[in-house]
């Protein structure tokens, strides 16, 4: 079908395509500023969950660490910023406390997690995540228990909030991609490919995985703080493992490598979910079904698939 296009032009097109797609993605995130309202609300939500998804993509796709406990980071970040504001701390400080708390939790659980390998890591992230959920749920005095925690008076305009969230997302993607080019990032990828070999070269793989986990925790905690400010409410139910699975869906849907896929997956998921929720309240059915379909049929994710289709068949993955 593309036989009539000169080879040279096709080559140019393929080289420029990734950049075009990335630009297009950011435009998609920016566009709702024009319409405001609920669309903007959703777009902000997508950017914040995108930040968390990008962090998970870094951890899973590049670090090879499967985590089903990301909701705990989100929740810790959300409660941290909520409680900081309640205690009268300035917002800026709250936004520092949130990632710090999540990172501390990542450090403590990571010390135990990385004593095991493979699927056990996944089971334990899930177990620890549910621990945070049950604490949040039961510890009424601090978290407000089932009633949640209301935030008021942050006075951020939706536009500002959206730009902030999107800025964070862009920074995170750019920063993590740079990190992945560094010796640390390459070593982390090497550990995913062959941990024994990397250890035999003298690299203490344990700490490399631990720091990747802590960094991911901090970023996700920040995303959680953003979600709390955005929704002006923190509910313990957002700490349930369904949220962790949702993040997993976003990452797998978009593609777990390269980080852009995760951001795209978050955007896609958020809008599809908003659309679907007008028919049904069975959120678990939706997330679960989507997870099953993604695992069975969209193994590498939509972003690389899109890149290949637009590039005319073969493409660079």
């Amino acid at each position, binding site marked *: 079908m593309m036989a009539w296009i000169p080879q040279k032009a096709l080559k140019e097109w393929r080289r420029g395509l990734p950049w075009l797609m990335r630009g297009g993605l950011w435009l998609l995130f920016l566009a709702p500023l024009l319409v405001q309202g609920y669309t903007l609300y959703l777009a902000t939500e997508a950017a914040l969950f995108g930040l968390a998804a990008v962090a998970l993509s870094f951890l899973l796709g590049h670090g090879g660490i499967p985590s089903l406990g990301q909701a705990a980071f989100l929740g810790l970040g959300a409660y941290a910023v909520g409680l900081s504001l309640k205690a009268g701390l300035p917002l800026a400080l709250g936004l520092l406390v949130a990632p710090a708390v999540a990172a501390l939790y990542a450090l403590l659980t990571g010390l135990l997690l990385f004593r095991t390998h493979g699927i056990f890591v996944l089971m334990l992230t899930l177990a620890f995540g549910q621990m945070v959920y049950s604490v949040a749920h039961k510890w009424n005095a601090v978290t407000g228990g089932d009633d949640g925690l209301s935030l008021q008076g942050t006075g951020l305009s939706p536009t500002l909030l959206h730009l902030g969230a999107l800025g964070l997302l862009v920074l995170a993607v750019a920063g993590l991609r740079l990190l992945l080019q560094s*010796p640390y990032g390459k070593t982390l990828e090497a550990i995913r490919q062959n941990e024994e070999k990397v250890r035999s070269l*003298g690299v203490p793989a344990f700490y490399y995985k631990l720091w990747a986990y802590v960094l991911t925790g901090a970023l996700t905690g920040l995303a959680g703080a953003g979600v709390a400010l955005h929704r002006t409410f923190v509910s313990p139910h957002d700490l349930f493992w369904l949220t962790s699975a949702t993040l997993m869906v976003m990452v797998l849907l978009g593609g777990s490598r390269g980080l852009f896929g995760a951001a795209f997956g978050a955007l896609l998921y958020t809008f599809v979910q908003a659309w679907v929720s007008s028919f049904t309240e069975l959120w678990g059915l939706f997330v679960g079904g989507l997870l099953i379909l993604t695992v069975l049929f969209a193994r590498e994710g939509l972003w690389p698939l899109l890149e290949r289709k637009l590039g005319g068949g073969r493409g660079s993955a």
Partner: protein
Amino acid sequence: MEALRVEKVSKAFGGILALTGIHLSVQRGERRAVIGPNGAGKSTLFKVISGELKPDQGRVFLGGREVTGLPQERVARLGLGRTFQRSSVLPELAVWENVALARQAATGQSRVFHQPLATDARVEEVLEQVGLSGRAEDPAGALSHGEKRQLEIAMALVQDPQVLLLDEPLAGLSGAERERIGQLILGLDPGITVLLVEHDLEYALRFAHRVTVLHYGQVVAEGDPEAVRENPEVQEIYVGSGGALEAPPEDASGGAGQETVLEVEGLVAGYGGMRVLNGVHLRVRRGEVVALLGRNGMGKTTLLCTLMGLVPLKGGEVRLAGKPLGHLAAHRRAELGLALVPQGRRMFDGLNVEEELRLAAWGSRGPWTVERVLEVFPRLAERRKSPSKALSGGEQQMVAIARALLRNPSLLLMDEPTEGLSPLMVRQVAEVVRTLKREGETVLLAEQNVQMALSVADRVYILEHGGIVWEGSPWEATEAVLHRYLGV
């Protein structure tokens, strides 16, 4: 000055003593070859030295410093470089990135996160040295088997190790690659202390200043290459034992009938992208014992596993009693009459001897029953309630053979049944194979113990570089033939 010292190191896996009281002292700048048959404990020794395994007893010193029980990344940082038996590179990273990462790990720069990974003069130099400059930008996964070996050596060299462990660097390589990598290793900087495990005896003796011979977990000889070559004990270990060659029977066809049990035509197999077998032809007739000889890494185990259906067939055809097996699963092949005595014996963790046997006997009909097997192997009757993993190597081998017999197979595939066994046990295993032959069983025997294999076989195939290179009767397998193909 001593670069490496191993003191009284012992290591057991279940009932198998892999290393028993090993002593080793290697001087700085020395070239040391560690040789010995399969299962002698060479790889275990390397794993203990590098910190991958903790010894049960004994101590290891690197450059005068004790490293016993340190995690392997610490031992590596203290100056131990290593290549693995199976090529082990980072497939998704570029070739130069593999080397650069190794370099950063050695200089403690792996943690750097604020600037991109970059190549440097030393990385370029090493890539040039191993002959991979032209492929620096390719992903390591796209390299050929031999090039991966070169890359692995580059990753070790760029770390400027004090001691370098090379675990069978020539295994599984074809002629030209073998030559290239052989030269590369011979030309290494004389300042590096090198320990080499290699099955190519000729090469190992050419390379080494001193040679250590391991056999069933013990050092049985040590000395310069000439002394080791002349040592009769070593010769026996290497050529093998297990009985003298019987005189050719009057009837050259042996007791075998003419009915073909197994026919293999143009068999192609391998792992992932790596082709191990490339067009193997062979046939086994009923009542025959056929020996399959070949150096390590030439594909003997791959061939038997492919026949059993444990490694996928990529080309060619396998027929059992005239029936093509195609891509049948292993359990279907087992039902059709194939049984495998696997390399390394593969006892089931958690099962006792009796359970192993009952598992195999279930649903199988024929002359071999649990009772009869226990008569043939009285030692197993005594140990029927012991966990099979806790048995000694020889006893485990008996279980593995008994298990396969209980399938009442039309063809018994035996993969290195003498591996890691003491000379006494080797003789016993040879005796068992002779008993089976008298009972009229059909056996395809892959063996590294040449003498043992020749003493029991009716016919012999020699496998080299993925194909059959020689075929004949045991008494036609002259020293010249054996030397040419097996290097013994």
